[in-house]
């Protein structure tokens, strides 16, 4: 993984000192609440319903075991002994004290971590595929490009006060696991006729109140121009994005208002002027820098393994052990290296808020990473953890250890692998609670045979239309709404965050919390009755349409 040199370390250390000074001046009454707001937000600090919340950056989801142990220690020392993994591959502490945040940031800096730009109207953490570097369908490892973008976006002098938050995702594979078309900028790694890697650039995607799928504005951008082109996009947005109405301030609104064609022309014109003014090409990425960053993401020291033998041993173990077989089928996937697998540790057992882990579990996860996966792990936008480089012959041992710590629930990709925001239990923006809904669904669908029969099914819950739980792109999406002070839930179906991205459509009038689980059951009944062999819920919906689902759910209400 990327390791800080003296420059990177100096910058995060100076950031800690800067925020310590700012916090002190705020506490001394020298900075108003209004003026402290963007300063704290750009250091990850929200003021929430019950306490401040601190969002810590995990650049493109990559963590070392040492960093995870530090997070465990921080959560114990400064918080209530647990952390929450978010849909942007970051983590949140729900109970820090404002006065102690500079100390937390200093602890983070000691393990090359920070909370820089995890909130506020600035460029946020760049996200990517949790299987980056090991995915079988990969064109090129996206992580070096994410790191290059991280450095470019960190304290970018021109873009610290954008009209609104700004999110970038990079996809390096055939299948999309980064939801890159739902970002302000989505970058797809592509190869041209000469076999050179470049970037297909999309803009204006996003969820929130006005969900939009991103539009292509440039099909092939050569590598060296990545940062100058990003400068051009951000400059056009910074100058012309709407600043009067925060609900119309995201870049997607500007792209829509101008049309993607006009937006692309404006960016092209700005970019041409940037390049023309940079006669010596100083803004262009150098081959040396690209190489420097790439060498941080080299392959681990894999063992040479007889693949067939490893597979045979695994099959034998699975035959005698149904729970292990279930875990293999849902939580383990092949990766590039023969004899190795990528394992997803589920952070979604029933009864726990999706994405929450305790300090002890974090330490266990760090131990598992050290023992089985070269000391590295990844957070996923589905709020789970991936150990990417596990020997197949170690899978059984890993499963037993993970199971003992509640990290082996065999539910990845099923209806119980719910993406869920913190909701009204924690978040001051929320209209409704989301965690109890997730729990009710997980409790209802505990029968694993039934869950597996349902197959791949993405169920996403947001407690308000800001859509942190990505409800628009769930196969089934649930949105908390406020009706005269009561919490109701709108059901949407047919969304997808894949490359064939689709936005879910509203099923009908919202349901009371008591009726949500029953409504979901009816949707699943319709699916089971109408599905064809091997057809997923999403595919069945796409074939038969909304009406049959709608009729069933609202039959008794009408």
């Amino acid at each position: 993984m990327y390791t800080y040199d003296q420059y990177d370390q100096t910058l995060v250390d100076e950031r800690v000192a800067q925020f310590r000074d700012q916090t002190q001046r705020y506490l001394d009454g020298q900075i108003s609440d209004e003026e402290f707001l963007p300063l704290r937000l750009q250091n990850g600090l929200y003021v929430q319903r019950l306490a401040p919340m601190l969002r810590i950056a995990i650049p493109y989801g990559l963590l070392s075991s040492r960093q995870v142990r530090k997070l465990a220690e921080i959560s114990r020392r400064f918080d209530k002994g647990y952390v929450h993994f978010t849909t942007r591959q970051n983590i949140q502490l729900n109970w820090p004290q404002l006065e102690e945040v500079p100390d937390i940031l200093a602890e983070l800096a000691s393990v090359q971590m920070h909370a820089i730009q995890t909130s506020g109207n600035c460029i946020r953490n760049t996200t990517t595929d949790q299987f980056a570097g090991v995915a079988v369908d990969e064109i090129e490892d996206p992580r070096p490009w994410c790191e290059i973008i991280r450095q470019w976006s960190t304290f970018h002098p021109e873009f610290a006060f954008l009209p609104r938050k700004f999110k970038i995702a990079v996809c390096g594979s055939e299948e999309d696991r980064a939801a890159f078309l739902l970002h302000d900028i989505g970058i797809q790694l592509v190869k041209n006729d000469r076999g050179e890697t470049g970037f297909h650039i999309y803009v204006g995607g996003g969820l929130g109140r006005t969900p939009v799928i991103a539009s292509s504005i440039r099909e092939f951008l050569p590598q060296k121009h990545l940062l100058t082109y990003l400068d051009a996009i951000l400059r056009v947005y910074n100058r012309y994005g709407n600043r009067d109405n925060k609900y119309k301030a995201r870049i997607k609104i500007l792209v829509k208002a101008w049309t993607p064609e006009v937006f692309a022309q404006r960016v092209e014109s700005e970019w041409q002027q940037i390049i023309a003014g940079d006669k010596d090409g100083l803004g262009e990425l150098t081959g040396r820098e690209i190489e420097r960053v790439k060498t941080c993401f080299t392959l681990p020291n894999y063992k040479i393994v007889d693949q067939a033998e490893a597979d045979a041993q695994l099959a034998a173990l699975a035959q005698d052990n149904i729970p292990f077989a279930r875990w293999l089928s849902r939580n383990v996937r092949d990766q590039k290296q023969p004899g190795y697998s990528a394992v997803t540790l589920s952070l979604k057992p029933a009864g726990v808020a999706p994405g929450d882990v305790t300090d002890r579990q974090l330490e266990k996860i760090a131990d598992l990473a050290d023992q089985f996966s070269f000391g590295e792990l990844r957070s996923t936008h589905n709020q789970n953890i991936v150990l990417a480089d596990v020997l197949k012959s170690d899978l059984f041992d890993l499963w037993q250890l993970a199971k003992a710590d509640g990290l082996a629930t065999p539910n990845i990709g099923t209806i119980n692998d719910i993406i869920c925001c913190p909701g009204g239990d924690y978040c001051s923006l929320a209209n409704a609670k989301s965690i109890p809904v997730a729990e009710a669904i997980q409790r209802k669908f505990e029968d694993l045979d039934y869950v597996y029969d349902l197959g791949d099914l993405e169920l996403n819950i947001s407690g308000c239309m800001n859509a942190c739980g990505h409800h628009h792109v769930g196969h089934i999406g649930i949105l908390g709404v406020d009706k005269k002070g009561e919490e109701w839930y709108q059901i949407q179906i047919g969304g997808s965050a894949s490359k064939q991205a689709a936005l879910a459509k509203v099923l009908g009038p919202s349901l009371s919390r008591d009726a949500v689980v029953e409504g979901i059951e009816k949707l699943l009944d319709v699916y089971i009755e109408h599905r064809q062999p091997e057809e997923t819920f999403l595919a069945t919906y796409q074939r038969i349409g909304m009406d049959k689902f709608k009729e069933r759910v609202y039959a008794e209400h009408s």
Partner: protein
Amino acid sequence: MPNILSHGKVIDDHWILLSDEDAIPAQGDIIVPLSTWAAQREVLLAREGAVSVLLDGQDEVETIADDLAHFPMIAIHFAKFVDGRGFSSALLLRDRYHYQGNIRAIGHIIRDQLFLMKRCGFSEFSFSAEIDLHAAADSLNVFSESYQTAADTAEPLFRRRR
């Protein structure tokens, strides 16, 4: 005369800021809104005393690109400190139009923005709030290094790393 921060030093300000309704004085260095400059260009150039133009958030630097030689200073107004458009305006003046005079931030700005503003090419700061300018000057140098190219450095860090 109010104090301002200029190139890191606290100095007395000699510029007079005019609104579009003020009469133009015969003498003295004046800052006028873009609309006044557009309407009374010849009058402003004929009088004694220097003239500077005030760009608001929505004003495009492109509109004064051909006039820059007339201005020893250009002022960029911040109605709200979180309006980042002025950052682009300053950087364009330096990078695209090679403007060498002073660029002054005026209005609702806060000291915690100074480092980034300086990088975008601002050299002077006139705060609407009464603050300790000597203390504020510390915020100009909170970071010793930067990743990106900007008005203060043509080479991004990746070209300077050792």
